[in-house]
């Protein structure tokens, strides 16, 4: 028998991704690795992700989280990822420091809702939405490391496709992921 045939097929690394209070820009940037996606799918398979439309995360090796935490659903999803992923990675400015959604943090959420739905210009018979289906907004937007333990951070708004590729290939090859100049950027 050929020696190669005896080698068991190496199981693929299972990856889940999600966007919380983000804009999916980091996911778009992830797709910017372009034809290297084909190389990547040789090594990984996707669990819950906007790419697969799987709704809940199963046991995974790597979880990529885009976006900060702005409502109760974000907290549930983040905890689900932490529970299921061996390695959890914050990707992009919003996941790391709250980013653009956190610009609302200096405003009172109650007064915002009142202004928009009750007292604002041209509002008639307004009411603040309270359908139980709707996740409740948090009083402030928080970076995800304030809610669960995060193993790695990929900064950027969004991080470039090259930065994401460098980071993931380092990690998959068993090296300590490292983004030097010029891949490490905050803007």
């Amino acid at each position, binding site marked *: 028998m050929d020696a190669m045939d005896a080698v068991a097929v190496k199981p693929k690394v299972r990856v889940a991704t999600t966007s919380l209070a983000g804009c999916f820009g980091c996911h778009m940037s992830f797709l910017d690795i372009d034809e290297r996606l084909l190389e990547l799918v040789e090594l990984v398979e996707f669990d819950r992700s906007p790419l697969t439309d799987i709704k809940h995360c199963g046991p995974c090796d790597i979880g990529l989280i885009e976006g900060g935490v702005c409502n109760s659903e974000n907290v549930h999803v983040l905890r689900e990822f932490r529970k299921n992923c061996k390695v959890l990675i914050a990707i992009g400015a919003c996941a*790391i*420091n709250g980013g653009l959604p956190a610009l609302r943090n200096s405003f009172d959420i109650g007064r915002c809702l009142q202004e928009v739905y009750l007292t604002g210009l041209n509002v008639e018979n307004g009411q603040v939405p309270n359908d139980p289906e709707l996740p409740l907004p948090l009083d402030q937007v928080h970076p995800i490391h304030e809610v669960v333990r995060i193993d790695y951070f990929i900064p950027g708004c969004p991080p470039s496709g090259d930065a994401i590729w460098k980071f993931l290939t380092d990690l998959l090859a068993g090296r300590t992921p490292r983004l030097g100049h010029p891949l490490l950027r905050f803007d």
Partner: protein
Amino acid sequence: MTTGTMLIDGVPVSFEYGQTIMEAAMAAKIFIPHLCHHPEFTPQGSCKLCTVKASGRYVSACTMSAKDGMEVENNTPDLNDKRRTLLQMLFVEGNHFCPSCEKSGNCMLQALAYELEMLSPRFEQFFPNRPVDASHPDFLLDFNRCILCELCVRASRDVDGKNVFALAGRGIHKHLIVNARSGQLADTDFSLQDRAAHVCPVGVILEKRKGFAVPIGQRQYDETPIGQQMDELAARSAKAEE
């Protein structure tokens, strides 16, 4: 003039008596991270980014005089870890949201975070509420990004003779203020020609209508990391004298 020699990370560096470790290192093109230091102004040693280990003790390189035979540790994992922690504390204390900042790419705080490979804020964000002052026709003050380096305070007081800026409050409540009865920059004689208008290392004092004259990606620290810009850092005082 008497000179001496010290070792910085094992490299002999000569200096003139009276020079600080920072001045000698800059002359020798050795990079010591710093924020509140500027070759044009009297050093005050407040940001602590330039902390080095001199003969076994942690000292601020910008205020400590160089001494003959001194052994200085600078670029070591221990010191860079501490410096990174200082940066992380500065980042969470203000609202440093780089993607929305005009200074991104020209900002020393950001450049040092790149240099020291700061990947996360690590601590909990303070998310302080600090309204901006857009009253002045030519300048915007965004206090969200102030790191209390006092360069504008020193420049306005010592060079411009105007005393436009000051720090008020104590401890965690310390903040930058404008010396006017209204507290507004428009009610001062602050102008484009002031030295203080051009020393902010972060994005607090911003000239209006100039924000994106140079696009993101082509700015000072985009091309070359700050640690390799010793000539530019040392030339800041010469530029002012022109």
